């Protein structure tokens, strides 16, 4: 009996098939050419024939890229940064829109996307707890075997450094304007934003 239920569930899942908007529309909405969109879509479709990525798949992908440590927490935050409509699944349009911002967007757009990533509860402010969560997630990806040895308060120190730099009025939270301002003052950050331009 349990077997038939499972098959029915599977059948239901396969029916959730999402088809993206037309190629022309996506080309107009993003900064990619038709060719690039085709290449992106082919990869996407191969991985997810149903047309959507869910969080589990995302975590698995990340686990393969960072086999040393535990990438699931960071993948979780990243997934929610991609899933702008908070539906629990990332469609091709979301995927391509985010990539367009990250790779071909203006400096402002990229920084705003990063701010959105750090702002876990999407309230427009980054506080220390949110930053701690993100930084801890990143350190989790390093795994156990690192040099030098990871200490308990390493993430906290990192967050303190970050806040000292970003929080201009020292009120304990970082707003979007403070964030943009501080980042634009830092030459290293500005330079590195160009780094990933040609990832595609």
């Amino acid at each position, binding site marked *: 009996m349990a077997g038939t239920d499972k098959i029915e569930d599977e059948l239901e899942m396969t029916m959730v098939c999402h088809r993206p908007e037309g190629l022309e529309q996506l080309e107009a909405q993003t900064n990619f050419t038709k060719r690039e969109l085709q290449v992106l879509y082919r*990869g996407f479709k191969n991985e997810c024939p149903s047309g959507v990525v869910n969080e589990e798949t995302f975590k698995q992908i990340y686990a393969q890229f960072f086999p040393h440590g535990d990438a699931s927490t960071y993948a979780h935050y990243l997934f929610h940064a991609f899933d702008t409509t908070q539906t629990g699944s990332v469609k091709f349009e979301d995927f391509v829109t985010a990539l367009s911002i990250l790779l071909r967007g203006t400096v402002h757009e990229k920084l705003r996307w990063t701010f959105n990533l750090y702002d876990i509860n999407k309230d427009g402010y980054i506080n220390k707890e949110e930053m701690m969560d993100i930084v801890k997630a990143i350190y989790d990806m390093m795994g156990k075997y690192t040099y030098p*040895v990871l200490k308990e308060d390493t993430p906290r120190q990192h967050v303190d450094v970050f806040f000292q730099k970003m929080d201009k009025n020292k009120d304990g939270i970082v707003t979007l304007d403070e964030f943009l301002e501080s980042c634009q003052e830092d030459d290293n950050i500005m330079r590195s934003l160009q*780094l990933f331009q040609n990832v595609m």
Partner: protein
Amino acid sequence: MAAGVATWLPFARAAAVGWLPLAQQPLPPAPGVKASRGDEVLVVNVSGRRFETWKNTLDRYPDTLLGSSEKEFFYDADSGEYFFDRDPDMFRHVLNFYRTGRLHCPRQECIQAFDEELAFYGLVPELVGDCCLEEYRDRKKENAERLAEDEEAEQAGDGPILPAGSSLRQRLWRAFENPHTSTAALVFYYVTGFFIAVSVIANVVETIPCRGPTRRPPREQPCGDRFPLAFFCMDTACVLIFTGEYLLRLFAAPSRCRFLRSVMSLIDVVAILPYYIGLFVPKNEDVSGAFVTLRVFRVFRIFKFSRHSQGLRILGYTLKSCASELGFLLFSLTMAIIIFATVMFYAEKGTNKTNFTSIPAAFWYTIVTMTTLGYGDMVPSTIAGKIFGSICSLSGVLVIALPVPVIVSNFSRIYHQNQRADKRRAQQKVRLARIRLAKSGTTNAFLQYKQNGGLEDSGSGEEQALCVRNRSAFEQQHHHLLHCLEKTTCHEFTDELTFSETLGAVSLGGRTSRSTSVSSQPVGPGSLLSSCCPRRAKRRAIRLANSTASVSRGSMQELDTLAGLRRSPAPQSRSSLNAKPHDSLDLNCESRDFVAAIISIPTPPANTPDESQPSSPGGSGRASSTVRNSSLAGLLHAPPLGPLGSHLTSELWPKKERTLCLLSG
């Protein structure tokens, strides 16, 4: 929209002329028809095999990949065809669906592969035609069951790998369930088995009449009455062991309620209870009859063997699963018995001194005859009786023979399933080990790459190791990504060996306090730009302080760079360095100022990301295998940027940083 009606739409619209006289309002204008090119032939290239079909054929099902605009994502403008990198044999079936409206299931293909193709082309499995639907469902169900079994075996069979920190209860339970995990468990297993056998044999031998040593008047006594004490002691010992085992299992069970209700524990209880009841029941005449009955239950101890024997468990499970067949067998037999008993009774009624005194009495004859036993204690004497008796025996054979094959096939299926599960569990360990090995391969690839000096400045003019140069584009990008993470967190990936070495180094006596005092200094706010990586500054300081501490490989690289000793980044040099720590330490002391001035900067990989990209836009669109990974890799490269990655940028612009660090001294 239902299948195939697209063809009839022009007809229905033309026939709308029939509404014109009736229409009370003017009809809406027709939708603007896109430049009707008439019907055209589309070319679909599936892995080199060209399929050509009318555009209309594909448009029949607009909610599939080929029927919608989704196929434009696969259109290659250069060759004017749609290219799909999928199985051409399977595509045949998909295309036939568009042509005929029925989706057929290929018999020789794996059902999973077929499902994946359907998912890719956006076809729902319900579209499989009636002719193939049953077979499709059966095969799918079989597959699903087998996969479920696999998962169960994976989850259940943890094998000897015990989770760390498991309590005594968990360990005890595991020892009970899998006796092969430890020697003690195995010993316990065999001891209980031995005692079960002893107990059963004692029960049997108790009743054998044994003669006394002296030839007294041959009063045959059963052994149990001759040696009551011996048998009682043996019984007590067995029951004590069984009680102990039961209590231990109860203690160790993860869910006591479930354990209490399980069949095996019930058997245990039934096996030992008669003894205890017998202890408390007084030995008077009234109750001794009941007492004797209780002793019968002792024979249930033999069922305890089912824990030791898998075949017995399979038999029990088969009987449970064939309950309906057994029920049918019983029911039909009962019907036949009643019918024939009645007939035989009335047939033999007239005879004198007949055994067939009543219908229930005739039941015994019918049963003995139908099962072809034929004891001969009751025999019909009239001719009618004999005729009906023979009919009875013939029909008996038939009625019993019918349900038996069903039971046998059930048993065979369950038995084979069990065998498969056992084999799979045995292979599980090997499988897991191999998977772990494969995983560690990717993990070690990056460390190997670092070891081979892949992170050194390529402008040094030295020959890089072949393995560094000949990495695939995917590997290069992946290593760059890992490198970015290292820079973000200011920690490097190492392997277990180095990690434990470092741990040992840190805990060296006397040096510890100094190193911790250095490392516990809070990083100053302005130091971000001046020292590219605060951790690295500390590392330098620690190295200077602990001159006898064991030096890790990263520092070896550092020292190499400083002293200008550009050894070829081959592994043997590394090991030779490790073997002679003192030389390098002397080096360290001499070039102390040198160390302070220059930071060892693992520079980015030899090929910049720009060069390593496959030329996608200009090319034919036939992406290499790495593009698929890099499309997702592209996604993953992008995010780690940001202020946290400021350390990263400093590493990538070595010249500027070197100047800065020289200034900071």
